[in-house]
């Protein structure tokens, strides 16, 4: 969405001045526990793995990724969604209109496309996310297909273009995305009005796109325009942004622009949350914990190794075996003697995909899904 550039600039400078005062005694993000602060303006926050102790990630612990300054909180009464483009009749929809449509709840794992970028070698520009740019929430709202049906979709539409209320700064590109109409019409694709029953502005409410199984970039926040179009949109955040090489490249080599593809879906992945990496533990029984997810598939199996990957055993999985949503895993373990242990986790999904030891290096550092690994020093009690 375009806005008055001068107004934005003035607001930014005022925000910068305010932040500099707060920075002296630490920056607090309203509504959030202490988070790993990759950036404060705009907010880019990572969840420390020790917060991941439940199937649903609480809003106050959920990671935040923003490309552009967060728009002013949207007054629910003033909210308008514009349905334009290849539709039978262009329409302006209110929040009340959206609330009248049948409401659905989809539990789904949301992961930043660049989660784990910091683990790639050689290093890549961008936010140096570790393990915590991911979370699992219960998203509720109307199906996107029901929203689009209000305006009627022209059969010539092959893609859906989505724009959020965030606006460019200076000459940065606007955050506009598109996706194939087939995914837009999928019954699990929602325009969420609630996240875990709440409406947190920082997470894109009152209306955020939920694209289960796809990378976070597709989950446009503060959706204010839906436009069925004949061709894929071409803005920066579609090309060259958020593309992945069709063929793997030697690490450290430049992208081949003609061979970059839009990311659709996500790989299989697991993350260890306990013990904490490089922590100490007393000799005795302990529980190894983590979570695993697989884009549009469900998790079939998670194996854990406590000896650096020589031997593996199956972990216990939480009961709900759903597409789109993660499963928690645990393995009770009693080390036989003190010393340093390398613990690893390896997930397999319902399509038979397995986490690799070495994920493909790619020029933007996307989709890290290497077998996870933490070290723990076990000491005599």
């Amino acid at each position, binding site marked *: 969405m375009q806005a008055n550039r001068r107004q934005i*600039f003035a607001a*930014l*400078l005022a925000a*910068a001045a305010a*932040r500099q005062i707060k920075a002296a*005694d*630490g*920056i*607090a*993000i*309203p*509504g*959030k*526990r*202490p*988070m*790993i*602060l*990759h*950036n*404060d*303006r*705009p907010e*880019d*926050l*990572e969840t*420390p793995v020790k917060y991941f102790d439940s199937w649903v990630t609480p809003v*106050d612990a959920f990671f935040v990724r923003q490309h552009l300054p967060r728009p002013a909180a949207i007054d629910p009464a003033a909210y308008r969604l514009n349905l334009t483009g290849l539709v039978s009749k262009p329409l302006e929809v209110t929040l009340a209109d959206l609330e009248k449509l049948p409401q659905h709840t989809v539990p789904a794992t949301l992961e930043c496309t660049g989660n784990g970028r*910091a683990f790639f070698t*050689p*290093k890549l*520009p*961008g*936010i*140096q996310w570790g393990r915590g740019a991911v979370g699992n929430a219960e998203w509720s709202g109307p199906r996107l297909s029901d929203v689009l049906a209000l305006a009627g979709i022209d059969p010539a539409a092959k893609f859906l273009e989505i724009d959020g209320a965030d606006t460019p*700064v*200076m*000459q*940065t*590109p606007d955050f506009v995305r598109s996706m194939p109409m087939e995914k837009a019409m999928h019954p699990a694709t929602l325009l969420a009005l609630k996240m875990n029953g709440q409406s947190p502005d920082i997470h894109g409410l009152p209306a955020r796109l939920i694209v289960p199984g796809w990378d976070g970039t597709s989950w446009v926040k503060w959706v204010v325009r839906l436009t069925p179009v004949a061709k894929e949109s071409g803005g920066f955040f579609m090309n060259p942004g958020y593309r992945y090489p069709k063929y793997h490249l030697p690490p450290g080599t430049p992208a081949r622009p003609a061979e970059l593809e839009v990311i659709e879906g996500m790989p299989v992945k697991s993350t260890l949350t306990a013990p904490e990496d490089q922590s100490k533990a007393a000799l005795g029984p302990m529980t190894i914990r983590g979570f695993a997810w697989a884009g549009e598939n469900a998790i079939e199996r998670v194996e854990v190794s406590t000896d650096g990957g020589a031997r593996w055993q199956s972990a216990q999985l939480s009961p709900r075996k759903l597409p789109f949503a993660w499963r928690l895993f645990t393995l009770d373990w009693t080390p036989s003697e003190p010393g340093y242990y390398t613990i690893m986790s390896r997930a397999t999904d319902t399509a038979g995909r397995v986490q690799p030891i070495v994920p493909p290096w790619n020029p933007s550092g996307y989709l890290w899904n290497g077998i996870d690994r933490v070290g723990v020093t076990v000491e005599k009690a």
Partner: protein
Amino acid sequence: MMRTALWLPGLLLAFALAATAADQATVEKGRKEEQRTCLPCHSLRIIHSNRLNRAGWNKELDKMAGWGTKFTDRDALLEYLGATYGDDKPVTPPEMSADGRSKQ
């Protein structure tokens, strides 16, 4: 020959010191350029967490120039970024934010 052997190391040291001083002045200019050109749009953490070689930093500056950043001393900024946040520099872990739960 003997005299040359005596003054040559001193001369080299003088050159080295002059070069370092020049670099430090450039780096300081670059730091100011960063404040002036980067801060209007975003905080600096997103820059300082990266470790890139000079070509990598140059590419980032190209991107920002394309997005409307008007550099007055781009060379100094590149010198500063390369010297301070080069790919040979150790990674520093990000800070934690303070608890914001009471500030809704």
